């Protein structure tokens, strides 16, 4: 109790203007920043994967399987920050037992389950089925048992059956694209529908979230593809990352335009909240929004990527630019999530005061736990990649 008071006293010193007592300390911490960030990466990675399948973009094929595995690894972790934030993980299951169709938050469980069970796992299963069946015969020990279970008994490798796998994969991808839109659009909806909060309440929120998700997903895949290829000591396919970088640039232009539209709309509307939002922007969010999100996370990578399009740059320089742009973009998208979640709680409902967010280091809502949730998907991805190598060379070739 005393500790809470000490923390409160420290926060109080940072309060400016008038603020209600229950607004001094933030209720949604960094874990709630991590949650939409990870969910966005899932949606983005999946939409990138679907480019190859649905829109037949052959250049990005080397990242297809990797994107699906990345989406799965991140999707497994996506609800964990929420569960950690709420506490009582043993109760989380109850939203499935007693579905409340009028609660948007409760519906997330179903959107998540649909996306995981019906879209991602089934698509991966059809994609890998041929390989799994062959590995289940070739491998030994525990791996063999895992593969055997994963075949679900469907070991038919006839040409007709393999054709069906491809067709089914395509159909699921087509279902998957709107599902990915639903998954991340939903996260934006949760914030956009909070009508009491002028920083969040916007119809554009789900759309902005979605496009920023696509941006972050593509940036992550560029980064993962480059790093993994480097570790595998293989050459990077320039046509692949050139294409990925183009998509990243286009998605960023769209995302940035939408955010500006939202911004201009707010300024033109000039509701009574505009003054405090302006104060928020120039004081508490100046570094994270103006410097990191807009300048370093959006404008710099956009200019760099546009440079690679316009100028004829050598491969090495292009690779370096793509790598830096991807990192900057990922940091920029993280600041978007930060500015939405944390920024939305920094001003008082009285519209007359600002508070501050003091992040814990060790506690359950602290920085270390957040970092753990950001690293965990990569550990899961490492295991998934070890079990299901996504490279072309590893793909099983059947002798006909």
């Amino acid at each position, binding site marked *: 109790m005393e500790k809470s008071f000490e923390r409160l006293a420290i926060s109080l010193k940072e309060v400016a203007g*008038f603020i209600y007592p229950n607004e001094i300390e933030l209720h949604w911490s960094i874990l709630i920043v991590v949650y939409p960030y990870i969910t966005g990466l899932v949606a983005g990675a999946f939409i990138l994967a679907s480019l190859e399948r649905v829109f037949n973009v052959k250049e990005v094929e080397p990242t297809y399987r990797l994107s699906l595995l990345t989406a799965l690894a991140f999707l497994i972790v996506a609800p964990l920050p929420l569960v950690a934030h709420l506490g009582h993980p043993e109760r989380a*299951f*109850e939203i*499935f*037992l*007693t579905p*409340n169709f009028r609660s948007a938050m409760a519906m997330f469980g179903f959107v998540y389950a649909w996306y995981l*069970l019906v879209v991602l796992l*089934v698509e991966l*299963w*059809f994609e890998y*089925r041929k390989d799994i069946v062959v590995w289940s015969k070739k491998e030994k020990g525990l791996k063999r048992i895992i593969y055997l279970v994963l075949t*679900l*008994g*469907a*070991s*038919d490798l006839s040409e*007709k*059956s393999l054709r*069906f*796998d491809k067709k*089914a994969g395509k159909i699921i991808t087509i279902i998957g694209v709107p599902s990915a839109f639903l998954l991340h659009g939903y996260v934006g909806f949760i914030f956009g529908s909070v009508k009491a909060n002028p920083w969040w309440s916007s119809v554009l929120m789900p759309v902005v979230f979605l496009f920023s998700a696509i941006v972050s997903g593509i940036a992550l895949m560029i980064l993962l593809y480059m790093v993994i290829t480097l570790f595998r000591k293989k050459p990077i396919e320039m046509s692949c990352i050139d294409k990925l970088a183009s998509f990243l640039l286009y998605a960023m232009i769209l995302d940035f335009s939408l955010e500006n539209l939202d911004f201009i709309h707010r300024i033109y509307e000039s509701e009574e909240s505009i003054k405090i939002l302006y104060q928020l922007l120039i004081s508490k969010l100046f570094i994270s929004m103006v410097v990191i999100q807009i300048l370093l996370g959006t404008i710099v990578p956009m200019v760099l990527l546009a440079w690679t399009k316009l100028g004829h740059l050598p491969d090495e320089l292009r690779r370096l630019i793509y790598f830096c742009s991807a990192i900057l973009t990922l940091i920029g998208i993280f600041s978007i999530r930060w500015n939405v979640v944390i920024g939305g709680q920094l001003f008082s409902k*009285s519209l*007359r005061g600002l508070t501050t967010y003091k992040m814990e280091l060790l506690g359950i809502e602290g920085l270390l736990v957040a970092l753990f949730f950001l690293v965990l998907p990569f550990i899961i991805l490492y295991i998934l990649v070890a079990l299901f190598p996504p490279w072309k060379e590893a793909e099983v070739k059947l002798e006909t």
Partner: protein
Amino acid sequence: MPQQIKYLFGLAIALIIIFFIVRHYLMSPSFGLFGHYRAASLKTVVSQEIKYAGEIACTECHDDIFTLKEKSYHRGVACEVCHSPAYAHTQDPSEHKPPAPRKRAYCPLCHGYNPTRPTGFPQIDPVTHNPGNPCISCHNPHDPTPPVTPQGCEPCHTQIARTKIVSPHAPLPCTQCHIAKEEHKLNPRVALPSKPRNREFCGQCHSQEAESSPEIPRVDMKSHYSGFLCWECHYPHHPEARLKKEE
């Protein structure tokens, strides 16, 4: 039907059946009986220790206070807001006496000035409003309108009164310089008191020719900063003229 579909559907159906079996065992049978909640939770809630008695319980013995309060501005404030949860008191009135806040710090919790409180809600500045006195010395909490209109100026203009009392003007009544109608006590903003308007007003006591007592500082009204009004240099509630004389 392709083999994959058969097995996949088989697995899906098995998962759905398992889900419903698990749901059957894990879900409370009383869920959804009255609404989207576990009806048995009502019993859990009912079994909790009761702390509040409710206002009706208070009226059974204290109906005189309740009648008074019902006619006052505090009619919307339940008894237990100030007197703490009093269920124990209703069970054993002699053993459990509910506390009554008597200190000055209590009332400003609601009536201390705060810009977000609605306009018209009675608010005071606890520093300047009759300092030192407990609120209940003037206001009956069960009928908080003050019984008598403040007779002097001090209750409202405490800061000025406190300044004046240590100044050379201490012996002067406020009405020496301000004419306040009786109406001012009831409608302070409507009936404003008068203020001195010219140098001659101060000159009545402070000019060379004034017939006031000799220890009062004098100035030559014609040569002493003739273009200015007296209160542009001297704060009337704490004039520093004596210092000048010593110089």
